[in-house]
């Protein structure tokens, strides 16, 4: 076995200890291992970028959401309660839906941490979970905006 190796004694000792038959087997092993680790890191980086991109995308809708909320609250206050009971209840529900979606975004931001320094498997699970949460929140914000706009248009 010793004759298979050309190289420093330390490398020879290492290969003998772990029963590696040829030095190029060692290189292939390192190559495969580092490629897998690199691909894993890239996947985690992509997940993090994707999560934060969804967050930024949803944040851009917050001004529209709040503008609609202010407008509905103003209209609500101006409407007579007796003759517009149903419409006022719908408006109240729409404002509540918008407040909830916005509040969930703030909660998400307060608890989200970049998983730097965590083991790869843990970071992956964490980011997949965060991506799922923030994607749902983005959809909730959009749905709340659509519901408020529909209500606003129905009153025109």
């Amino acid at each position, binding site marked *: 076995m010793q004759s298979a190796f050309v190289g420093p004694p330390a490398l020879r000792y290492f290969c003998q200890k772990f029963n590696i038959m040829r030095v190029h087997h060692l290189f292939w092993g390192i190559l495969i291992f580092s490629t897998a680790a690199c691909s894993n890191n890239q996947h985690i980086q992509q997940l993090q970028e994707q999560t934060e991109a969804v*967050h*930024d995308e949803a944040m851009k809708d917050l*001004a529209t959401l*709040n*503008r609609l909320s*202010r407008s509905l609250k103003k209209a609500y206050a101006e409407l007579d309660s007796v003759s517009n009971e149903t419409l006022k209840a719908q408006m109240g529900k729409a404002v509540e839906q918008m407040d909830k979606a916005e509040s969930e975004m*703030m909660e998400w*931001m*307060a608890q989200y941490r*970049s998983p730097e320094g965590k083991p790869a498997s843990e970071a992956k699970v964490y980011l997949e979970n965060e991506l799922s949460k923030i994607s749902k929140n983005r959809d909730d914000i959009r749905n709340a905006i659509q519901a408020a706009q529909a209500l606003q248009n129905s009153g025109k």
Partner: protein
Amino acid sequence: MKYLIASLLLLFFWSACITPENKSLPYLGERRLAANGDTIYPSIRDFTFIDQDSQWVNNATFANKIYVVDFFFIHCPTICPKVKANGLRIYQKFLHDNRIMLLSHTIDVKNDTIAALRQHAEKLHIDSQKWKLVTGNKDDIYSIADDYYSIAKENPEAPGGFDHSGRLILVDKNRHVRSFCNGTDAEDTDRFMHDIEILLKEQFPTDAK
């Protein structure tokens, strides 16, 4: 002839060098004409918020000063840290110039309490007399963000309003918006800091500092 060309080139470069110093900043936003024919530029409305020291902050806080505005969240994971880093560069550059202040509004009024703002200010090592981190009624903050952002926008056709873009906005001592930059971009912030110097010269022509 050679001397003439060289002199013309020299004159060209010399004028190119001095032009920016003489430049004045435009008034941003859609202007309108008053009944007497005067041009009216959009201006920032009255406001009242509360800062990291539990002190009221209103238009009087910025009387006879120019100020830099932004909107942020303490826990924002993406844009805000970059904007704060560039905001800190502005703060450091004009730290001893009492003609300029900074005003940062939190959009997250639930989590960014006065105590949280104070802690954030301590972490950034900023002087509360120079840089106000303010909170208040959520709708009032979004509403004034609409004012600032609808004036300071790249595309005049765009609807305006807070867009999580990390914009830094420069307001003159008469509440007019005069410049803005992308606060996530260091180079654009450099250009913005130069605009601040131009505005200081324009608004305080007789001051040494």
